[in-house]
Structure formats: structure tokens, C-alpha cells
């Protein structure tokens, strides 16, 4: 193969740099990422480590960045400035929180609360959770997915270190991307990686007999996440969970292993195409006549919402929620 030296688009370098230097793709502070857990006072050590990877918390920021990108030439200086906000801020002393809050954050509250809700649900199902708090690091899934394998090697060591401090036997991941990378990539990179990796969905499924019945007039359709259905082979579990709560649901044309991707994975480099793909998946799900789309992946949640937002003409929009939000409503009612 012909191999030429290739200069990468800045967005990739910035994401890489942020993960490696700051422990998450957007260079958020650990305290910001862990803010949702303040009240819960979860211990740092235990058998079952609750792992957010900051992924739900970061979603609104990613979304705002993407909408900025859609309007901006990726090669422009302003763009690099936006993406490297924290990098630049650190050098020049502009207030990062202010910049992020005013320019980017809008659904901060909602997405921060997803991790909180997930923890509450698991606690109600009888799980004792521990959490690394501000020390928690992003899994590095993007490093691996984008091809930064060299960076991933050293980054994974840092992440594994934090995971080990918990003394946990099992790690429960909210994001299937994190679960995938822990399950399939980490054991190849880290000599001693003794963890059992579970997803939030699996833990709920194990205790589905304890789930509250949900009396809802809404009909649900499941959007299977690619990672969950194809890589982790978790699809029937989602249906079982709904069934045990007595929730009526329909199936999209393309479901389970044949699910259609939400478009999320190429959002950073090709936001327009990504949105178009998301909009088409939303259409597929809408065809079922359901009122509510449920998914169990932060990127699917964000991408499907993005696809829907693009379709401005519709007034009767189908609702899109994460399974966590839906379950939590059930527990609250």
C-alpha cells in the first residue's frame, strides 16, 4: 500500500489531545463531569463500579460544538479555537466555564441528570455502587475508534489505574462504547485487567422482576444501538425489560442485529451527512406509529435528536428518550 504522510483535520487532533491531556474529549474538568453525583455520596471503593465515562454529561457540549461546526469551515481558525477552547483558555486565561455555558450548553441539566437517574435506578434494584467521582476518566473509546492506537496504549494504563483504585470486580457502563472498549480492547492493552464488564441494560435485565409496572398510554419503539446489538449482542434484553413493565412496544423494520445506525459516529467530521442519516433513522422508527423512541446509548440519543431537530416542519414530533430516563419515570410514578 502506498503510504503518504497525511496531515489530519484539526478536529481529530483536538479530540485526541483533549482525551490524552484532560481525560475526556472536550477537556472538561473532573469536577464538572462528576457534579451530578454530589448528593449521592457514593463511596470510591466497592465491588460494583458505576462508570459514566462522562459521556452523557458531555453530550450537550458535543451537540453545541457540532452545530457550530455545521456553520463553520472546519479548517478555519475560529473552528480550531472552538474545538480547543480549553487548550486555548488554559494559555490565555479566559473563563472556560463562561465560554462553554454561554456558547454551548443548553441541555446541560437534562444530560447531567441521566447519570444520576441511572445510579438511582440501580440502587433501587439493590445494587451497591461505588464511583470514582472527579477522578473518573473517559474510556478512550474515541481514541481507539479514530485510530489513535499509540495514544490509546498509554492512555488505557491511566484509565485502568483509576478503575483498579475502586477495588471493584465488576464495572457497569452506561455507554455501550465504553463497555465495548473495556471488554474487547483493554484486555489486549493491559496485562492485568480483571474486571467483569456489564452494561446498565444487563444489570437492569438481571433484576427485571423488581421493575415497577408502567401504566403508559405511549407506545414505544426501540432503537437498538449498533454497539449494543451487534458487538455486545444485547437486544432481546431491552424487549424483556419493557415486557416486564407491561409497556407496549413495536419493532422498526430494521431492528436488533439489523438495526440502522443513528449516524452518530461520523458526526464530528461530517455533521451534515450524520444529520441526514439520523433523520432517516428517525423516519424508520416513526413509521411504526410509536410515540416514543427509546435507546440505550448516549451517542444514539444525541444523534437521533439532532436528526429530528433538522426536520423543522413537523409539529407532531416523536419523543426520544434514553432507557434510563424512561425507567426513572417509572420509578417516580
Amino acid at each position: 500500500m502506498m503510504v503518504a504522510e497525511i496531515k489530519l483535520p484539526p478536529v481529530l487532533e483536538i479530540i485526541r489531545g483533549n482525551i490524552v491531556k484532560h481525560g475526556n474529549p472536550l477537556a472538561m474538568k473532573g469536577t464538572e463531569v462528576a457534579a451530578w453525583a454530589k448528593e449521592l455520596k457514593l463511596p470510591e471503593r466497592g465491588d460494583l463500579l458505576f462508570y459514566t465515562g462522562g459521556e452523557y454529561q458531555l453530550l450537550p457540549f458535543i451537540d453545541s460544538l457540532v452545530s457550530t461546526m455545521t456553520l463553520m469551515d472546519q479548517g478555519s481558525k475560529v473552528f480550531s479555537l472552538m474545538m480547543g477552547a480549553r487548550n486555548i483558555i488554559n494559555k490565555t486565561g479566559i473563563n472556560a466555564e463562561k465560554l462553554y455555558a454561554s456558547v454551548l450548553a443548553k441541555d446541560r441539566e437534562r444530560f447531567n441528570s441521566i447519570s444520576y437517574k441511572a445510579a438511582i435506578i440501580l440502587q433501587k434494584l439493590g445494587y451497591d455502587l461505588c464511583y470514582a467521582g472527579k477522578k473518573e476518566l473517559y474510556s478512550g473509546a474515541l481514541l481507539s475508534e479514530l485510530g489513535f492506537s499509540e495514544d490509546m496504549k498509554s492512555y488505557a494504563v491511566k484509565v485502568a489505574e483509576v478503575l483498579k483504585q475502586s477495588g471493584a470486580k465488576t464495572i457497569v457502563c452506561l455507554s455501550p462504547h465504553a463497555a465495548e472498549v473495556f471488554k474487547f480492547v483493554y484486555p489486549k492493552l493491559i496485562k492485568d485487567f480483571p474486571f467483569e464488564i456489564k452494561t446498565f441494560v444487563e444489570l437492569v435485565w438481571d433484576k427485571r422482576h423488581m421493575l415497577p409496572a408502567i401504566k403508559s398510554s405511549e407506545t414505544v419503539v426501540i432503537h437498538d444501538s449498533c454497539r449494543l446489538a451487534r458487538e455486545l449482542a444485547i437486544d432481546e434484553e431491552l424487549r424483556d425489560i419493557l415486557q416486564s413493565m407491561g409497556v407496549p412496544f413495536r419493532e422498526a423494520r430494521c431492528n436488533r442485529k439489523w438495526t440502522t445506525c443513528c449516524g452518530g459516529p461520523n458526526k464530528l467530521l461530517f455533521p451534515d451527512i450524520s444529520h441526514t442519516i439520523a433523520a432517516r433513522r428517525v423516519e424508520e422508527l416513526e413509521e411504526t406509529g410509536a410515540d416514543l423512541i427509546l435507546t440505550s446509548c448516549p451517542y444514539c440519543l444525541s444523534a437521533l435528536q439532532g436528526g429530528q431537530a433538522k426536520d423543522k416542519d413537523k409539529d407532531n414530533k416523536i419523543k426520544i428518550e434514553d432507557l434510563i430516563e424512561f425507567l426513572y419515570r417509572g420509578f417516580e410514578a
Partner: protein
Amino acid sequence: MADLQKEFNSYTKDLNKASKDENIKKAITRAVKSYRETTAETLTRFPHTPAMAEEVREIKTKSIANNSELLKQAMESVERNKGKAFYAKDKQEALEMTAKIIGVGKTIVKGKSMLGEELAIREYLEEKGNEVWETDLGEFILQLNHEKPMHILSPSIHVPREQVAELFTKFFKKEVPPDIAQEVAVVREFLREKYFTADVGISGANVVAADTGAMVIIENEGNVRLSTGAPPVHIVLVGIEKIVPTFQDAMKVAEVTWRYAQYGVPGYVNIISGPSKTGDIEKVTTYGAHGPKEFYVIFVDNGRSDMAKEEEFSEALNCLRCGGCMYECPVFQVTAGHFGHVYMSGIGAVWTAFVAGGLEKAAPLVFTCLRCGRCVERCPMKINVPSMIQKLREQVVDG
């Protein structure tokens, strides 16, 4: 140093434009629906297919591992059949060999071939002063329209009948209405004359049997029959990865290919092993009875043996080019062949990297792929494209 950002910018513009193209949207939506329905129906009708696909996967994997032996055997078989066999190590060699056989000032009728696209053989032969006609209807339309194929099996999938009518009216210098039957008829009439006056016919092959030297070519239109049967010379350009050990293996590969290519049962399966011959007068074998007197096979490497050597990528050579993955690809569904460089979609990114432009051309494709994995669900060879894409990204990143 290649600045990927610049490549990305123009490529992204092209992708975005394609995603807003109503013709592409309409055509692909229709094609995807029809692909899924026909495939589901024919897989029910021929339920042995998935098991046969697994068998073919093994045949192909072993054949790729044993490629140099099979190539030798296939070339010997072709020669034994009184054909001429050549090995072209790269694109330039393949082009020069072909041009040397053909010469200048000739008329050539050509069947559809992805390898032909990879080599840009038509353009090359035209530059050398020949007249080359694409005989597959879709390719013919693109030839007149100066466009590149948008799908490996349905190259002009994005051109609706109205545009075809406009194009034909201009080219044939007579009114051609936007009526598909009439559009087909004018091309039939035009090309019929070309088949019988052409000096050379060029085709690819879907699979090659090493033991007999048989070239198996699947088609529906009948253009391959005519292109390979009517002119006095037939040249086959085929990738070395297409060779399998036996004739029986080749039949299995062919059946799996057409089934996943939505053909159900193809109109024609051509099996060509040598020049046309007769022994009807005094049992004296004489060549060039009704079909070609001369038969040439050029086995093209052009990066394939390098691919075969790489454990992480060799599986990509199992690709049957059925095109099934493209119908499943969410990116392809909104952009068609714009998500490609010669070869299309995820698997196309891998092929582009090795045989059609290198990593630099493949890089934008490599990052467009969602790695969602639905192509793998469809692929009869279960080629793990997402994993290859990730490996290619590593190569882009690490240089």
C-alpha cells in the same frame, strides 16, 4: 505532505451535495427496497444459499492463501486451452499489455468490470486512438454522460429515465422519448452494429477456475455474450483474487455471488475457457469458428498480493462484489457512489487503500464509514469491514 483537511473539504462538499440530490434519494430508496425484497424472496426460494456462502468463504480464504500456486495453474490451463495468459503486476503493466494486444485504430466493445474502472482501461485505450464502447446499459449511459459509476452493479442507478431520454436524444441525434423500453431499444440497435464490427471484446470475470481455466461471467443483459462472442479477439482482465481451485468451486462462488447480487437467477452465466474452435471437418482443430479466434487473459495484481500478505486485510479479497453491503450502508444510502473512490463504501475504502489510489485517497472514506457493522450482517463472506477501517485509521494517524 497530503493535507487531509483540503481533501476533506472538497470531498465533504461533494458528499453533502449528493445527500441533497433528489435523484439519488429516489433511486437509492427504491433500489434498497427492491434489493431487500428480492434477496429475502430468493433466499427463501433457495434456502441452501447461506450454507453455501459459508462454504464459499472457506474456498475463497484458502484460495487467497494459496494464490500464487493457483495463479500458475490457471495460467497453464488457459495456455493449454490455446489461450494466452499474462500476469500484470500493476496497473501500468496491465494497461500496456492490453494496448499491445489491441494496437491502435481499433473498435472495442467492453463489458462492465470494476477492474476496468480500477485501471481506467477505456480512457487509456481511447487515448491510444481506439474507439471503446461500454455495452452494459448503465455504463453506456455513464460513458455518454462522462460520469463515474454510482454502484458497482447498477452504475447509473442515479440517472432517471427523463435524463436518459435527454442524453440519448442528443447523442443519437433523434428524438428519444422518456420511455424505458424505447431507451433500451435504441441502445440495442446502436450496439448491435458495434458487436459485429468490433475488432476486440473486453470483459472481466466473476470467478476463475484454475483447473480448467474457465472464466465465469454473470450477467443479465446479454451484452457480455455478444461482446465476448462476436468480435475476433476476446481479452479478459481479471484480478488474481478471483481464482479458485476447481470448476465446481467456481460454480459455488458464482451462485452465491448472483444470489446476493439480487439476481435470483441470472439471465446468463457465461463460461469461457479458450478461443472458439471446431473439428468438424476431418477432425482438424481449427480456431475462430464462430467466436473469437484469439483469447487472452490478463491476471492483474496491482496491490492484491500485498493485501493478501496482511493478516488484517486479506479477508477483503474474499469480496464477491455482490454489492449487497452498499444497499445496507447508511452512508451509501444517502450519497451513493460519492462515498467512494473507484471502489465504494466501507469495503471500497479498503480496496481503494490497496489497489486504487492508496491511503491518501482512501483516508476521507475511512473516516466517513460509521463502522456500524450492518454491512457485515449482509455480507455473504462476513468480511469484517469495521475492524479493517479501524486499522486503516491507525495507518492514517500514524503515517
